[in-house]
């Protein structure tokens, strides 16, 4: 019959790698027997079950006695971890964007897209994106775990370090003046062109020494103009406030979130109305290529509006995170 010591050593050996097992178990057995002998002498009686329990309690659980014998094990060790972090921060956003573009570029349902279709497809594209990101993360972890296993002492040769290469301290509240002014400039151009020169947007052809003009935007597009104007006016207003204040604040962030949500709404409306907002019939009708070109443009517009929705959604998430960080840091 096996004794408590045999059971203890069996549990110890189960927790040891094969190459250490035999030697370590023999060593621990010898130490336990020494301890048992010492106690037996001290108490003046032969070892029994109760004494074994006391001695084994002194030695600690099999897991705790084995721990110091084992080298520290990592799935991805501290030497590889910074490289792993770098790869993750580059690859995962690229995967997310590619998955989103791939989904909408391969969108094959007939246009116009209905509101229900749109919501279902946005949810599906986000699901695909998450799945691609999780799968990518898993694959990168597996590659790094293999590297860790094959090259446990892997380290990148340290370059000569220069303090001037240090990254600037992150300032989430700092505004980017150049970006804001560029946005104001383009919003103003959009506002002026789509308000006063909408009838000038179309295709110009120089045929037989004469310029001909064919409008491409339809009256359905005109319904969007007040909303686009409102978007541009709000953008100009927000950016002007930011330039005057010099930094992001709680109120301006809320304002920006509302603006981005509005942007999502407009992009979604465009997405459901793609075939109605423009026409190529007048311009290419005679050439017979209008339908092919139109389906190509439709596909490009689907991707463009889907990406616009994603970008605005990411901006909202970034704003919310900065708001939470601002609250935490007081």
């Amino acid at each position, binding site marked *: 019959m096996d004794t408590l010591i045999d059971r203890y050593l069996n549990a110890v050996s189960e927790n040891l790698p094969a190459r250490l097992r035999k*030697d370590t178990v023999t*060593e621990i057995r*010898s130490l336990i027997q020494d301890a048992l002998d010492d106690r037996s002498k001290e108490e003046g009686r032969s070892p029994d079950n109760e004494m074994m329990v006391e001695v084994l309690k002194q*030695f600690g659980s099999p897991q*705790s006695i084995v721990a*110091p*014998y084992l080298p520290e094990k990592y799935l991805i060790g501290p030497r590889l971890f910074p490289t792993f972090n770098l790869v993750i921060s580059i690859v995962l956003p690229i995967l997310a964007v590619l998955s989103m573009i791939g989904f909408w570029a391969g969108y094959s349902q007939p246009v116009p897209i209905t509101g229900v279709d749109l919501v279902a497809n946005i949810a599906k594209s986000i699901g695909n994106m998450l799945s691609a990101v999780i799968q990518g993360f898993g694959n990168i972890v597996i590659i790094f775990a293999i590297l860790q296993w094959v090259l446990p002492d892997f380290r990148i040769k340290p370059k000569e370090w220069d303090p001037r290469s240090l990254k600037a301290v992150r300032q989430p509240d700092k505004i980017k003046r150049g970006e804001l002014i560029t946005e104001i400039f383009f919003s103003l151009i959009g506002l002026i062109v789509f308000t006063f020169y909408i009838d000038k947007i179309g295709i110009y052809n120089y045929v037989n020494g004469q310029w001909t003009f064919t409008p491409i935007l339809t009256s359905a597009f005109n319904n969007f103009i007040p909303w686009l104007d409102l978007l541009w006016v709000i953008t100009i207003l927000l950016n002007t406030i930011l330039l005057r204040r010099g930094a992001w604040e709680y109120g301006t962030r809320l304002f920006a979130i509302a603006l981005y949500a509005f942007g999502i709404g407009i992009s979604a409306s465009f997405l459901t109305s793609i075939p109605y907002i423009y026409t190529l019939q007048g311009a290419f009708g005679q050439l017979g290529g209008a339908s092919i070109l139109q389906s190509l443009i439709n596909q490009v517009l689907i991707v463009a509006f889907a990406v616009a929705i994603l970008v605005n959604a990411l901006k909202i998430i970034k704003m919310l995170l900065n708001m939470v960080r601002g609250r935490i840091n007081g």
Partner: protein
Amino acid sequence: LLSEKGLEIDQGTLYPLLRRLETQGLLGSNWRVEDARPRRYYKLSQAGQDNLPRLIHEWKTIVQMMQRMLES
């Protein structure tokens, strides 16, 4: 022997440490059977003997430095 010299060290700490020194090549070991029980004996390897003066010097330097810091 260690406790006689005033160094009380737990077995669970001592033996894994000896193993690590052996892995680093500073100790060698062999099994001997005494009182019908196998026992492992560790002894300084050649590399251990070569490194011992340097390690003793490092240890003494640390002790002296700590002493100066505690006195000041």
